């Protein structure tokens, strides 16, 4: 059980902090889809793939004092920033510092916007479909977000890059 907690701490530490719950959800999902050993179970929710298990794990890590959650008020909305505490680093190291294979992935993902990650994660959720069906499904479940062709093409290119 704690190994799974340590992987999340390791990811947030490698990404040098994560801003936004949605972003964290989508990044872990994308990494899981490209074969990283995350165990969190995902289902399709309002913003696309979402893991209740991940939400619980992050809340637990905050309660344990291994992750610090900072609420940032952005006037029209609120977002949360997660950083790893010194105790969290000690915890991760005590559990044998789980390797996420490619630290560059964490940084690369963290550099993307929540909107782009939502798009990428949603396309990956439907990756058992033909590309044209994948795009049709994206528009059907995310119609309100009006993703452009250019954004979709960028997301497919990004998936290809991650899978290399």
């Amino acid at each position, binding site marked *: *059980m*704690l190994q799974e*907690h340590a992987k999340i701490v390791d990811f947030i530490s490698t990404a040098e902090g994560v801003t*936004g*719950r*949605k972003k964290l*959800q989508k990044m872990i999902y994308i990494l899981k889809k490209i074969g990283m050993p995350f*165990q969190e*179970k995902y*289902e*399709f*929710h*309002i*913003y696309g793939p*979402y893991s*209740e298990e991940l*939400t*619980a794990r992050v*809340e*637990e890590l905050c*309660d*344990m*004092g*291994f992750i610090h959650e900072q609420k940032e008020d952005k006037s*029209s*909305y*609120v*977002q*949360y920033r997660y950083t790893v505490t010194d105790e969290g680093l000690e*915890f991760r190291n*005590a*559990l044998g510092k789980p390797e996420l294979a490619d630290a560059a992935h964490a940084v690369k993902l963290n550099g993307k916007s*929540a909107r782009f990650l939502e798009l990428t994660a949603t396309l990956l*959720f*439907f990756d058992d479909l033909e590309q044209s069906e994948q795009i049709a*499904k994206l528009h*059907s*479940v995310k119609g309100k977000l009006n993703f452009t062709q250019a954004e979709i093409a960028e997301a497919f290119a990004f998936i290809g890059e991650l899978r290399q």
Partner: protein
Amino acid sequence: MDYANQKLAEEKVFKDPVHRYIHVRDQVIWDLINAREFQRLRRIKQLGTSYLVFHGAEHSRFSHSLGVYEIVRRINDDIFHERPEWDESERLVVLCAALLHDLGHGPFSHSFEKVFNVDHEDFTREILQGDTEVNSILKKVSAEFPKKVAEVIGKTYANKQVVSLISSQIDADRMDYLQRDAYYTGVSYGHFDMERILRVMRPFEDQVVIKSSGMHAVEDYIMSRYQMYWQVYFHPVARSAEVILRKILQRAKYLSGHGYKFEQPPTHFLAFFDNSFTLKDYLALDEGVLMTYFQLWLTERDPILSDLCDRFVNRRLFQYVDFDPGKDYKKLGELTQLFERAGIDPEYYLIDDSTSDLPYDFYRPGEEEERLPIHLLMPNGDIKELSRLSQIVDGISGKRRTDYKLYFPAELLIDGQKKEIKQQILELLREGGV
């Protein structure tokens, strides 16, 4: 008449302890119930290992699936029928989705999925859309119909009212399992006034809402859910059995990968051990098959596998203590080393386990929450989120409760061997926190 609208010559009924009767008139539903993949659900218990604590809890996913179907059928045919906000053409797809929503569950799903890294929802989708009896029945409705049913179950269907009936914070799935599990476990929690809730459910825009006059019935439902999770679903002894079950499968997989020669070849598991399984392999498993292997493995040469099977089959479960990982993870490290020195493999005999639940949550504007709240329909037509009006629900909204336990075989620590080390283990376990 086309297959989608074909009715049985006479209504069929199943006697049911929760809903009294399950009513079937549609030929499609009758055919699906008789499909081999649906009949398989008779051989999978709804509550996994809970029967080792609540001996009545032997009911199957088959009866639960029928129950969810019956609730959705009543909502469709009695409550939503002829309401302009409800699209009547969705009737068959939502009935099929209700009946088939758990189709991909395997034997002791929770443990099995963890060890073999599979997801029952993927199997549900595969059964609906692959080469199966269920698929051939659904395809007779239309070529696109299996996909539509899969989308409802996968929550990606365009009509969100349809999805909400099967999967939301107040859905037919939960309403059935709370009552059914309460009935079969014999506990007094889990009961609520479902009749009242059904009468006040309304289709509204892209969701299903509850008339505000039914708020107290919904409060009762949420409290029932809260009680059932902590008194039944997260029972620490049932979790002990679950931990042992997981370790049996993990050990068998480990042995297979390390050249161990089983006295009884684990034929049914081989494709899962080397990750080459197909849907056919998965459907060949049920709890009878797993229990047979556990019986056979009682006499295996590997002492860990045979011991774990003995513990599960004969209910010699692990003991447990409360554990606070935030404070005690270092002690867990010490305990792991001490177990090794005592000759007890900590990988199989010292297991930390956590479980948590969020009884109800609501969407906070501007935050990135993912749970659709329960909305009440006010007499003036306004919509209000439940916890804004209900103090009881407000009291537990958004409050997650987590429970951590450390499981271990108590009798191995007092068997007189390596006494000194085991004494240190017992002292650490007795210390505050652990």
